């Protein structure tokens, strides 16, 4: 795998469970699979019970979309953490740290800093101005039908990208952990999620997310206590053990290749705590950072959570709680990742999943007593169940966001001209949930084996380039209007998608072919040289034997074996390269007909975010709208004072 390819896996692999790479083994030992089912059944049972109670409380559209506005700041903070800490953060970041050390930890920082944007400029105005969807916010001082249509399309687009990555990642994860078929696990995730959303709406989704977040934090705390406690909770002492670990030193040597030859073991260990083992393209990383920091505040399923609390103060409180939980969790992953690197080892982690996603579950198994112990498998089963609950909870939030856009914005807002009773709207919302859920399951099954990892990064990029500019400028710029919103959404979404389509994320058959041909040529040369060596060694041995002389150093049987082995390796590399070329099937261009990337970055944010903002500003100035400017005073006063906000109706 080339450096670039590795960087690709990384950025997004963490985000979307590069579990999409083939799994080689099942993690839970077969004789203990029953434990997994017990733990899974317990968690599903609890969430179903909560859904049953929530279903009784879901009587109106307000209940369905926003839990009647009756969620407290503390509850919402946990729910946001539950919504946000997808399997990507939980398993992906721990995996990255276990394989690449410092870079994995650095990667986690952006995911927390993103919430500063949410806290300072988005959460409170969103609560004061919005009702159920992002479309509601934009409709305040723009043409409601037009902006709701475009915002709904953008919401559904972003949610579908994110959803696809979650469904595929979830299917692979469950298959890897307990060995049931991919299609079955996708269907199980989909059906469970639909049950929560359909019957319990936002109330059930909120509680499922809270339960999942608590389980996740408890599981992580227990594991960190076990792994760090051995070192008396001494930070430096623990890291000394990390740098002294021979497995980690060997992993660093593998990562840096020839550069490791002149390094001592201690230096190799220390290198694990230094940057650069994973991220090789700084500009790309900055581009990703921009998408994270601005995109989180534009993710529909996150923004929607602020409509569930009664006041701006509670919205603020919920972000602060979420930041405490999410940040604390990422600090724990530093220990989970390095702990897995020490106790389990990079080789064993990548043997089960190339992207490293199994680092945390395998660490749990080790801490419980290992592969053959009952406690070890119970802990693994518990962590697996938490991961499963994670995917279901995140998917439920995404489906709810997409379904709300479909029913509230499109059906009620545009088609019915805002004339629908609460019963009609509730029915529409449930029908939309079934449609979105069915689409999610279908896409999940169709995308089997596809590399969908870059879709999470794309979801963040679209959210940062389209959704965030229009929401931010609607809140803070007097002249922002319908034309600006439409232009921003269209330009932001299309430019992010288009740039990814012409980026190195896509498959370029000719480039792959050229690279593989190089491998074949190098292998051929190596084989020819080694075959020559082999003959030389053989004849030297034969001569020595004939003359009854002792074998010369480097010209003995061991050298013969070594040469044979190396020929074997070279032949294998050649066969692999040939198979890859064959796999291209004569294709010469990428999905959009390119032979090489037009855009050098994997993350489009650096270009598409400024384009999105520019589009809003230019179109707003070109098509001045009196009404939007007249409404500005009202919007700005309301967003700052909360006067006349859509009242919460808690039961």
């Amino acid at each position, binding site marked *: 795998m080339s450096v670039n390819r590795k960087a690709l896996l990384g950025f997004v692999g963490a985000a979307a469970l590069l579990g999409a790479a083939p799994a080689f083994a099942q993690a839970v030992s077969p004789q203990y699979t029953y434990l997994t089912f017990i733990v899974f059944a317990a968690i599903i049972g609890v969430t179903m019970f909560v859904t049953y109670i929530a279903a009784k409380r879901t009587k109106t559209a307000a209940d369905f979309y926003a839990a009647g506005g009756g969620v407290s700041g503390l509850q919402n903070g946990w729910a946001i953490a539950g919504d946000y800490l997808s399997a990507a953060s939980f398993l992906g970041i721990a995996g990255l740290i276990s394989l690449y050390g*410092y*870079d994995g*930890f*650095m990667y986690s*920082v*952006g995911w*927390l*800093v993103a*919430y*500063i*944007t949410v*806290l*300072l*400029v988005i959460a409170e105005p969103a609560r004061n101005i919005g009702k159920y969807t992002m479309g509601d916010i934009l409709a305040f001082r723009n043409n409601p039908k037009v902006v709701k249509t475009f915002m709904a399309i953008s919401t559904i687009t972003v949610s579908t990208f994110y959803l696809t990555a979650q469904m595929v990642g979830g299917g692979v994860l469950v298959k890897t952990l307990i060995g049931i078929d991919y299609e079955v696990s996708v269907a199980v995730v989909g059906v469970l999620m639909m049950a929560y959303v359909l019957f319990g709406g936002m109330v059930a989704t909120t509680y499922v997310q809270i339960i999942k977040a608590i389980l996740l934090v408890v599981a992580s705390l227990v594991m960190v206590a076990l792994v760090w406690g051995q070192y008396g909770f001494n*930070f*430096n*002492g623990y*890291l*000394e053990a*990390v*740098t002294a670990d021979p497995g980690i030193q060997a992993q660093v040597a593998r990562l840096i290749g020839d550069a490791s030859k002149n390094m001592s073991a201690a230096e190799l260990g*220390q290198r694990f*705590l*230094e*940057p*650069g083992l994973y*991220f090789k393209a*700084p500009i790309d*990383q*900055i581009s990703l*950072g921009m998408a994270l*920091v601005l995109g989180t505040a534009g993710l529909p399923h996150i923004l929607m959570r602020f409509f569930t609390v009664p006041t701006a*103060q509670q919205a*603020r*409180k919920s*972000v*602060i709680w979420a*930041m*405490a939980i999410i*940040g604390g969790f*990422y*600090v724990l992953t530093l220990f989970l990742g390095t702990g897995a690197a020490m106790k389990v080892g990079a080789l064993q982690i990548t043997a089960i999943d190339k992207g490293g996603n199994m680092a945390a579950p395998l660490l749990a198994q080790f801490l419980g007593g290992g592969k053959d112990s009952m406690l070890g498998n119970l802990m693994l089963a518990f962590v697996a169940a938490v991961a499963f609950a994670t995917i279901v909870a995140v998917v439920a939030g995404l489906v709810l966001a997409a379904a709300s856009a479909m029913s509230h914005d499109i059906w009620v807002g545009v088609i019915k001209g805002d004339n629908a009773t609460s019963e009609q709207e509730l029915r529409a919302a449930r029908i939309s949930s079934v449609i979105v859920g069915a689409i999610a399951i279908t896409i999940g099954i169709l995308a089997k084996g596809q590399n969908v990892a870059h879709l999470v990064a794309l979801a963040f990029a679209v959210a940062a380039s389209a959704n965030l500019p229009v929401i931010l400028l609607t809140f803070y710029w007097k002249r922002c209007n319908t034309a600006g919103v439409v232009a921003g959404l269209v330009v932001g979404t299309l430019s992010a998608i288009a740039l990814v389509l012409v980026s190195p994320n896509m498959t370029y058959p000719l480039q792959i072919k050229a690279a593989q041909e190089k491998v074949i040529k190098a292998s051929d040369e190596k084989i020819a040289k080694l075959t020559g060596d082999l003959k030389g060694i053989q004849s030297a041995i034969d001569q020595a034997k004939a003359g009854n002389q002792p074998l010369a150093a480097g010209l003995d049987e061991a050298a013969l074996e070594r040469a044979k082995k190396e020929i074997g390796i070279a032949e294998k590399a050649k066969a692999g390269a040939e198979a890859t070329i064959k796999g291209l099937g004569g294709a010469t261009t990428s999905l959009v007909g390119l032979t090489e990337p037009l855009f050098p970055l994997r993350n489009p944010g650096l270009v598409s975010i400024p384009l999105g903002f520019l589009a809003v500003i230019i179109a707003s100035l070109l098509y001045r709208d009196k009404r939007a400017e007249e409404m500005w*005073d*009202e919007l*700005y*006063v*309301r967003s*700052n*004072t*909360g*006067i*006349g906000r859509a009242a919460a109706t808690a039961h």
Partner: protein
Amino acid sequence: MANQTLNWAAIDADPRFQELHARKSRFLWGLMVFAVIYYFLLPIGAAYFPDLFKVRVFGVVNFGLVFALSQFVVAWGIAFIYARRAQQFDAMAEAIARDAQKIGGRK
């Protein structure tokens, strides 16, 4: 809704609202700019000043680790500072909301 009849421009023009607006804008955008700059120093530093990140601070703990951990402290610090400051904004906003009919009521 009674609020629909308010004269929003009058409330906007009210000196108390103007003061809230000025204080809040200065505070929020200042904090936001600081947060963004501080964050991007991490990937930029790691990429262009790796030698600085490798400097040991204590034991095996290097500057890079301390700086990455400081990102968490700074993020929480910003949340804490904002939460405290926002109480002042809340009080000001509440006073304006209470007098909304008086300032912006239409005859």
